[in-house]
């Protein structure tokens, strides 16, 4: 992964308006993020926001410093890819009218440890989980068969140990 890629993980209060405050700040200060995900943590009342962005160190540092000023943001830090587990989920519907191609697709899905989650007369729906690079690689390969629709979740990450600021 190129090193201008950054994952930022924040623990935030789970209450109305928090995601808005975070995204409002990102927009206002002209930061450009790639993905943002929000979900529950092990603690009731606390959610985790994971966001990814491309940019230099200075930009990332500013983003973290600015976000940490939001009173609802309890803890925020950059998560180094090598010090964390991070995954993304993609659901991809591929056209598969030709039975020969259909088995090719299934082969690729197996190689990438994906799963076929839905089958129709002329398409296959695939679920694939992994690092974004893996998903990108899978998409590259499967593209040739004709992607009908696709949805990606953005990254969730868990630091192996969460460093505080």
């Amino acid at each position: 992964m190129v090193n201008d890629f950054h994952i930022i993980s924040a623990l935030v209060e789970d209450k109305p308006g928090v995601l808005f405050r975070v995204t409002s700040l990102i927009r206002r200060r002209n930061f450009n993020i790639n993905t943002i995900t929000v979900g529950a943590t092990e603690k009731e009342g606390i959610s985790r926001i994971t966001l990814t962005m491309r940019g230099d160190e200075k930009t990332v540092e500013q983003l973290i410093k600015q976000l940490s000023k939001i009173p609802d943001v309890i803890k925020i830090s950059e998560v180094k890819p090598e010090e964390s587990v991070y995954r993304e989920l993609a659901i991809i519907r591929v056209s598969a009218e030709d039975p020969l191609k259909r088995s090719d697709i299934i082969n690729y899905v197996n190689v990438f440890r994906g799963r076929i989650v839905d089958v129709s007369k002329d398409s296959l729906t695939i679920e694939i989980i992994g690092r974004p690079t893996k998903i990108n690689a899978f998409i590259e390969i499967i593209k040739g068969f004709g992607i009908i629709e696709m949805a990606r979740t953005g990254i969730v990450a868990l630091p192996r140990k969460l460093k505080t600021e």
Partner: protein
Amino acid sequence: MRILGAKAIVEALKREKVEVIFGIPGGATIPFYDALYDSDIRHILARHEQCAAHMADGYARVKGVPGVCTATSGPGATNLVTGIATAYMDSSPVIAITGQVPRSMIGKDAFQEADIVGIVTPITKYAFQITSASQIPDAIRTAFIIANTNRKGPVLIDIPKDVQLEEVDFDYSERIIIKGYVVRSGEPHPYSIKRALGLIMNAERPLIIAGGGVIASNASEELIKFSELILAPVVTTLMGKGAIPENHPLCLGMIGMHGRVEANKAVEEADVIIAIGTRFGDRTTGKLEEFAKNARIIHIDIDPAEIGKNVKVDVPIVADAKKALSVLYSKLIEVGYSKKESEWIKRVNYLKEYYAPNYEEKGEGLKPSKLMKILRNIIPGKSIITTGVGQNQMWAALHFKVLEPRTFITSGGLGAMGFGLPAAIGAKVAAPDRPVFDIDGDGSFLMTEQDLATAVSEAIPITVIILRNKALGMVRQWQCLFCNKRYAYTDLGNTPDFVKLAEAYGAEGIRVESYEEFETVIRRSLNAEMPVVIDIPISPDEKVLPMIPPGGSYKEVIWYG
């Protein structure tokens, strides 16, 4: 104690020692106002909510405690926006309480519904809605803590009408926990202090840039002692005016686009800069690549996000200005460091003298700069100045020497025209025993002029000095310098007769056409019991000079228009 939510708001405000609230009531705040009616908190009825917010802001800046304003839902709340943005940009602790439509109607486009929390989130430290009366005590406590600690700033609390009418067991705890908000001790880190001392003690040409943070942290005394010890000249930002008395031998005045040339030049020549409580705004720095390019920079700021945001810093000190300065001072005393004289000071004094003649008035007519100097000579040092925005503001900044902190109140970051009058009213409420002057432009004054009615009704004797150039002068100046004198829509044409206008409001209106008259009127205004409006016709061609063109460096300074 089981009370109505509305009463709980008032009780909580009393616990926060709120003495005055600026506002305008409306449907969604009727219960709150009903409770307020019985309390001994003073209420000042503004004539526009923007003014209520500016008043609270002026009050806060003068008194150094949070200022409170209130408005009803919808249009009342949206009218606060400019005032809140002003407070945000200048880190002023303003608490805004807005009414909201009842909970069941939120999101239904109810009458006078506006998503005020959504609207002000980017211009507040925090904005939130209360969803049950039981939250009121903690919410108000939280709002005051957030507004008035660390880097200060506005907080808005939105309270639906039915929440105000709900009963609550009132229990006010002083200590509450906001998980994500840490009140900083403000103590500097010893390691940064050590590195800073290294730079300071080896500096040949040290210079201090004092920003608004010095005033916010009440660090003037520490600043003066420190600068005298290391013999560093002090320049200020617009917001820093008053951090050091501007007649202090070490003070060089304001830097920046309309800064004094000797001050800008000192920044250019310094080898170590100690910047305190400044965010290095673009009006202060000009072209970043050229700014202070010969200096190592020590940056003291309470807000870690300010460090390295605009200017690359050699030694960051995340700390309260007062604490950082006193630690630096005592460490220097400990090692016996002090400077008695230096070539640098001689150089700086030379610059001061060299440029002095450039600030003298030439030519016909009343000169704003001269008026500023006269004003300074007659009014007491503790008098408070507020300003409009534009040339009037910059003439005041350039030529009016501020002698005490919290006596120069201006819309620095937002540059909101219309700030001067309401801020003066707020200032006078905060300091009734001190003279308050609003140095204003005709355009700025016309934006919030209706609040003269407030000043008259409440018998708040402030003096408004209108530098009437019949123009949106500052914009006109740019058009003159950068648009080939194409004066696109900056002629105010038929400005009202400000004397009659003042009289219509029940204030005193006076036109002044000579320096002598000006002096007499100012002296008289010092004892006025009602607001005074002084109308001073000046030429629309008067310019604020020197000026560094936008995006330029001090080398491109324009001296003559």
